[in-house]
């Protein structure tokens, strides 16, 4: 099989995975996003009322809506999910092509292994340090820092897995495959843990410390008036938890479907190629 077949099948499997993740998002994620946006709007109104009471001029009108909420919550999220499915499918296909035939497992098993590695490095490990957050959780002022830190986690964990595989291959002859995989796992976890310890929590960014004092996250605290009375609650912990579980599940679905569909497509293609060969041999004989 040539690289072309892998790349095209990667994009196709990724698109299928994206559609599955889209349906999941519509049912499970959108209610949480709506709840978070409701909180954000309510809090915005409370903050404005507080500022007006303190004598500040009322802030200028509502945020301009570039894309309607209804469109965002249906087609927009679908474009995002299918688009990221294709993107991940293409990146997946690159890694798969480089490994195909070089590892002693059948294609559909290798496909699941590569998908698992993608899920772990591109999503799950960064999630441990900087978990997915619904609207209202995350300050406008720190978007630059947050994006940079998130990408450091993504690139770091990819590099760490590469390092872990390298070390595991190095010691495999001496200690056997099982132990080599364990050693690789320890290398990956240790390097990831060090990076997570070194990088700051989002609440530790200077802008946030000035505003709220040192904290680990940016999750909104209760809003208080001058006398310290709570006039608007902090962000609902249950909504935050439900959103994060849904986000994690959607990524597991995305990578899982990608790996399974891709593996099935490649094995079908290989089996078909063999049948054609046999037919050709039979005809020429």
């Amino acid at each position: 099989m040539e690289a072309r077949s892998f790349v095209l099948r990667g994009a196709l499997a990724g698109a299928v995975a994206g559609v599955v993740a889209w349906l999941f998002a519509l049912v499970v994620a959108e209610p949480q996003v709506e709840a978070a946006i409701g909180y954000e709007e309510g809090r915005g109104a409370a903050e404005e009322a507080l500022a007006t009471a303190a004598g500040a001029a009322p802030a200028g009108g509502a945020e301009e809506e570039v894309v309607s909420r209804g469109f965002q919550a249906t087609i927009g999220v679908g474009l995002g999910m299918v688009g990221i499915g294709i993107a991940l499918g293409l990146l997946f296909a690159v890694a798969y092509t480089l490994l195909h035939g070089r590892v002693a497992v059948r294609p559909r098993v290798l496909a699941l292994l590569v998908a698992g590695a993608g899920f772990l490095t591109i999503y799950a490990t960064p999630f441990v340090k900087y978990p997915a957050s619904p609207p209202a959780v995350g300050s406008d002022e720190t978007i630059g820092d947050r994006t940079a830190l998130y990408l450091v986690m993504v690139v770091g964990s990819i590099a760490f897995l590469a390092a872990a595989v390298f070390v595991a291959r190095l010691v495999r002859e001496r200690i056997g495959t099982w132990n080599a995989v364990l050693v690789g796992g320890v290398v990956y976890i240790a390097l990831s843990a060090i990076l997570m310890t070194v990088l700051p929590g989002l609440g530790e960014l200077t802008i946030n410390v000035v505003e709220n004092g040192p904290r680990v996250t940016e999750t909104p605290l209760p809003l208080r008036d001058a006398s310290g009375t709570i006039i608007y609650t902090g962000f609902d912990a249950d909504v935050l938890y439900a959103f994060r579980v849904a986000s994690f599940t959607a990524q597991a679905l995305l990578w899982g479907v990608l790996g399974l569909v891709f593996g099935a497509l490649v094995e079908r293609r290989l089996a078909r190629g063999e049948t054609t060969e046999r037919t050709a041999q039979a005809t020429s004989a």
Partner: protein
Amino acid sequence: MTTAGAVARARATTVSASETLPWLASALLVGLVLYYFIGIDQGAVSVFGDTSYVHELVHDARHFLGFPCH
């Protein structure tokens, strides 16, 4: 299809570097560009200037996929 057969077949079809490179390079490029536009553009940095159409369009997916957003 047996596992041994499938492994052997995969080994026999290991792809060579020369015919592979253009496909892999384009897949890598397109994959990264898509990842960038869905996850990052018009948030922290923007190639389409000071509009937020891309950001708003994929807004929910961006939050849900774990990218930093506001």
